[in-house]
């Protein structure tokens, strides 16, 4: 029994003596530990002091956002970590108190294709991958043809969202319909459901797949794009968050696009930056929605192509074929 009580081998020592022994040992150990810690701390401190006093820091050349090359001590560089969870959360929630609308004036579109290239640049798309399609329309043989840019209509009753089996595509409180490429399983039900053919499937590796590798996924930009998933017009929700007009709207040279907030009854022209009353604009110009009879309640309005001030030239689409 007694040998069990003390495993260090002090079989004959009494209980009191044993206690004292262990206390002594404890203080001894503590003192030793303290000394070691103090010595170590001093060593680290002196090393730090030495590093500090060294004349030449290890400098790294850094290119700032305003295009200057500056030198920064290597030990003071901090990685900016983009919080993907935050991007996902804010992307799902949308902007409070807004209902975004777009108005497209068909009378002004002359197929300059600046909206398309701005969009493709922002979303890393190939020249033949369109979030906005510019269609050549002619209602009947004797009516005048016109160009019609057709982005996603961001329906208030979106058939694409209803059919998505994994909640990858969703509608936000500000009316924008987005797609989460991280959730999308590529079933393409939404492509089949969309009456406006606004959606695009990445059959091949996206344009900047290599360059975008490892970048934090921004659900409001769809970058990096992913093979085997859907991509579509996002109303440039990343720009709207900053209070800026969408990429396409501000790139248009002909004043085709108006963009604004239905709650404020105002739309701003992307070219002239003039702001108009939405209700007034639609009333005066007889604005209409695309295939409104389907009950999809689109958030994009069209102004009819009346009084076109230019000749319609049936030019071939310069970037129709994959290059």
């Amino acid at each position, binding site marked *: 029994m007694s040998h069990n009580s003390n495993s260090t081998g002090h079989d004959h020592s009494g209980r009191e003596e044993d206690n004292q022994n262990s206390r002594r040992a404890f203080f001894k150990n503590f003192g030793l530990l303290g000394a070691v810690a103090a010595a170590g701390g001093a060593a680290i401190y002196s090393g730090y002091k030495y590093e500090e006093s060294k004349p030449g820091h290890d400098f790294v050349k850094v290119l700032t956002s305003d295009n200057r090359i500056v030198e920064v001590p290597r030990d003071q560089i901090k990685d900016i970590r983009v919080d993907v969870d935050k991007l996902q959360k804010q992307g799902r929630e949308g902007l409070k108190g807004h*209902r975004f609308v777009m108005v497209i004036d068909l009378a002004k579109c002359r197929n300059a294709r600046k909206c398309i290239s701005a969009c493709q640049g922002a979303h890393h798309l190939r020249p033949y991958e369109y979030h906005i399609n510019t269609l050549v329309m002619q209602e009947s043989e004797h009516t005048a043809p016109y160009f019609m840019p057709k982005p996603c209509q961001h329906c*208030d*009753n979106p058939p694409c969202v209803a059919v998505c089996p994994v909640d990858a595509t969703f*509608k936000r409180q500000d009316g924008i319909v987005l797609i989460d490429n991280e959730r999308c399983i590529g079933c393409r039900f939404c492509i089949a459901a969309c009456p406006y053919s606004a959606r695009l499937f990445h059959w091949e590796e996206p344009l900047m797949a290599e360059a975008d590798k490892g970048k934090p996924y921004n659900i409001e930009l769809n970058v990096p794009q992913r093979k085997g998933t859907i991509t579509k017009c996002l109303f440039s929700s990343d720009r709207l968050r900053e209070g800026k007009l969408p990429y396409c709207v501000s790139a248009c040279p002909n004043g085709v696009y108006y963009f604004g907030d*239905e*709650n*404020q009854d*105002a739309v701003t022209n992307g070219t002239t*930056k003039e702001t108009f009353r939405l209700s007034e604009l639609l009333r005066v110009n007889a604005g209409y929605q695309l295939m409104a009879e389907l009950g999809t309640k689109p958030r994009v309005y069209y102004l009819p192509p009346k009084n076109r001030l230019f000749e319609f030239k049936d030019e071939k689409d310069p970037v129709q074929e994959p290059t």
Partner: protein
Amino acid sequence: MIKRYFSLLLIVLISLRLSAQVWVVPAENELRKSPFAFDDASRKAGSEIYNASCKSCHGEPGKNNPIPLVPPPPDFASVKMQSNSDGALQFKVTAGRGPMPSFKNTLSATDVWRVISYARSFNDKYVQEVSKSSEAGGASVQNVKIQISWLKDKNQVQASLSAMKDKVNQPVAGAEVKLFAKRYFGNLLIDEARTTDALGNALFNFPADLPGDSAGHVQLIARLTNEAIFGEAKADSVLIIGVPTYRPPLNEQRAMWNVVSKTPIWLLLAYTIAVLGAWGFIIYVFLQIRAIFLAGSKKDPDSAE
């Protein structure tokens, strides 16, 4: 030989076409001059505006790194840019052409002059000529203050202009004022430009149906249009004059397309009843089969005999 003549003709035609693309500036604009002398303050303000609005296309002045457009946006330090008169630059920035956007509605006249002031800092030979009318002492009225108030009985917004003159606060008459309501992407012009009366007041008819926020707040901005005479003045105030507007989030309703927690109730009930009904029927059938089996396996007292 014919081929050579043809190519010569082609070159001539192309050069003619190129020269036809010269940006024509109206004579009166060409001669327009800045209302104030360019100084360090204006150059600094101009460089900030340049970085925010111009640099994305024109690149850094003197480094010749514009974005690749056709025609290329000229460098601010280039001869092509500096050979323009101040008035021509002001006209081109304001009007815009092709890929060069118009800044008529985004930059105030004074801000455009500030950008020009910044552009001229890259030209050592430049000597500024200040506008005659302002040479006498800059803008004839200075430090104009604008106050915005709401006249409820008339449904009008009043902008009152006053300035310190001879150490007395006096109303400013005959100044043209524009009133804007701030919207998310830009400023909405309210009514039209009005000129102040002898008391320094300008009245604007305010639309009765303009939506404000949920409490009816509307941010109003009043701005002087003729900055050459009155200098730059701007007022910014929030008044409760809009229609209180609250519209629920668009994904709040119960709908087929919404998330599971927002399923329409009829769909939720119908689905649950259908599932329970189907399984209930299957279980009922199994129970009946079991009952038959039990009934069959029970020893019939008659047949046992």
